[in-house]
């Protein structure tokens, strides 16, 4: 405090000078049109420069974050790759044929809906690309739906968010399976029915395709258990499954082409004929 007073005594005239000039310039800028315009314009210029600078800083920052997330993805993919390589080696040791039962046909979603009670997706691959009715459609994250109608260049996909959609699913690590249905409310949540109540289901368990429906091979992730309900007097759980695939934000999907469909069909038909 004493220093402040000494400072003011020594430099008081300078402080007063700055104060008075500040008053004068604020009067000048506020009450004189041309000076006001110059002041506003030049401060506007300065603002613009500062803004574009901060924008660029923000871009750099977000680029760093993107690099981080991408390197995480790369790490994940590498782990998966190692795992897959080990699987291939195992398969070769067993002298078994690799799983070449399915081919993935990449396609771009050109139309999508989630609000209706029966939702369809349109993709830009059709008969020409080998897409056929009843083929399964997945994304990197999980199951999307099943192809219904096919034209030369396009196909419609019955989304899992369709009230008639039935996908056979099981709890990962067990053999218990049930049907996935959708009640038409929340586009992130589907129901898994028919899991008997003696099965130990935990929230967070992964739900996979069972392989029993012919649209999807076994072991494709669908979602994770969000809620487990057991209604009174019932023998089966009603399990709410939150989907891994974000149905609101679909861009690239893969259509699963089954190479042994014909063989399996004829086998089943034989059985039916007898």
């Amino acid at each position, binding site marked *: 405090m004493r220093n402040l007073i000494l400072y003011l005594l020594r430099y*008081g*005239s*300078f402080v*007063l*000078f700055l104060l*008075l*000039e500040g*008053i*004068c*310039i*604020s*009067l*000048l*800028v*506020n*009450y*004189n049109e*041309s*000076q006001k315009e*110059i*002041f506003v314009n*030049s401060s506007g210029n300065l603002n613009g420069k500062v803004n574009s600078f901060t924008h660029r800083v923000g871009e750099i920052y977000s680029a760093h974050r993107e690099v981080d997330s991408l390197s995480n993805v790369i790490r994940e993919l590498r782990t998966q790759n190692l795992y897959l390589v080990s699987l291939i080696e195992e398969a070769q040791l067993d002298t078994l044929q690799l799983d070449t039962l399915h081919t993935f046909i990449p396609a771009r979603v050109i139309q999508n809906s989630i609000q209706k009670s029966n939702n369809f997706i349109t993709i830009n691959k059709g008969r020409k690309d080998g897409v056929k009715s009843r083929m399964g459609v997945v994304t990197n994250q999980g199951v999307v739906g099943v192809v219904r109608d096919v034209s030369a260049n396009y196909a419609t996909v019955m989304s899992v968010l369709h009230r008639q959609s039935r996908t056979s699913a099981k709890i990962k690590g067990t053999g218990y399976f049930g049907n996935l249905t959708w009640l038409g409310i929340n586009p992130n949540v589907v129901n898994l029915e028919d899991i008997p109540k003696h099965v130990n289901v935990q929230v967070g368990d992964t739900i996979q395709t069972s392989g029993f429906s012919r649209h999807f091979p076994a072991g494709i992730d669908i979602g994770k258990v969000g809620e487990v309900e057991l209604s009174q007097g019932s023998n089966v759980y009603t399990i709410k499954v939150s989907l891994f695939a974000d149905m609101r934000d679909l861009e690239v999907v893969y259509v699963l082409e089954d190479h042994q469909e014909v063989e399996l069909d004829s086998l089943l038909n034989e059985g039916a004929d007898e």
Partner: protein
Amino acid sequence: MNSDTLPHILRFIGFFLIQVLVLQNIEFNIGILQYFHPMIYPLFIIMLPIKTPVSLSMLWAFLLGICIDYFSSSFGMHAGAAVFLAYCRGFILNFMEPRGGYNVAHSPNAKRYSIKWFFQFCAVLLALHHLFFFILQYFAPIYALEIILNTVGSVLVSFILVVFFQFIFDPQE
């Protein structure tokens, strides 16, 4: 009121009236040369007693400047320039101190020191004042040429007025 302060108050009122009623209303244009805007009121600040603290002379300068601004609808220009002049006066007084030093109770004037010293002193301060005034008036660096031309032209005319004042009134204080 003692006799020491009376001349200053008279100068305050007199310069204010001359500036507002006469100088602001006369156009000193010579053909395309429109750079003459004489100002007499800085002489009030120049001639304040040497012992006046810089802060006090700045307050006086601000008051006089605001009064002139009010009647010439140029808020802040004359006041800003006058405050700047008052602040600079302290440094210029130190810088131009004559060999015998100052008699701090009195005003700087031609009688007490030398005519040469006083007119140099006035010229430097008028130049600073006018430069700052025109900087405030044009307010943008692209008008640098106008600022300099106006300063030079106006300092010439103002200086002539100051000389006239010295010889006609011959102020002792």
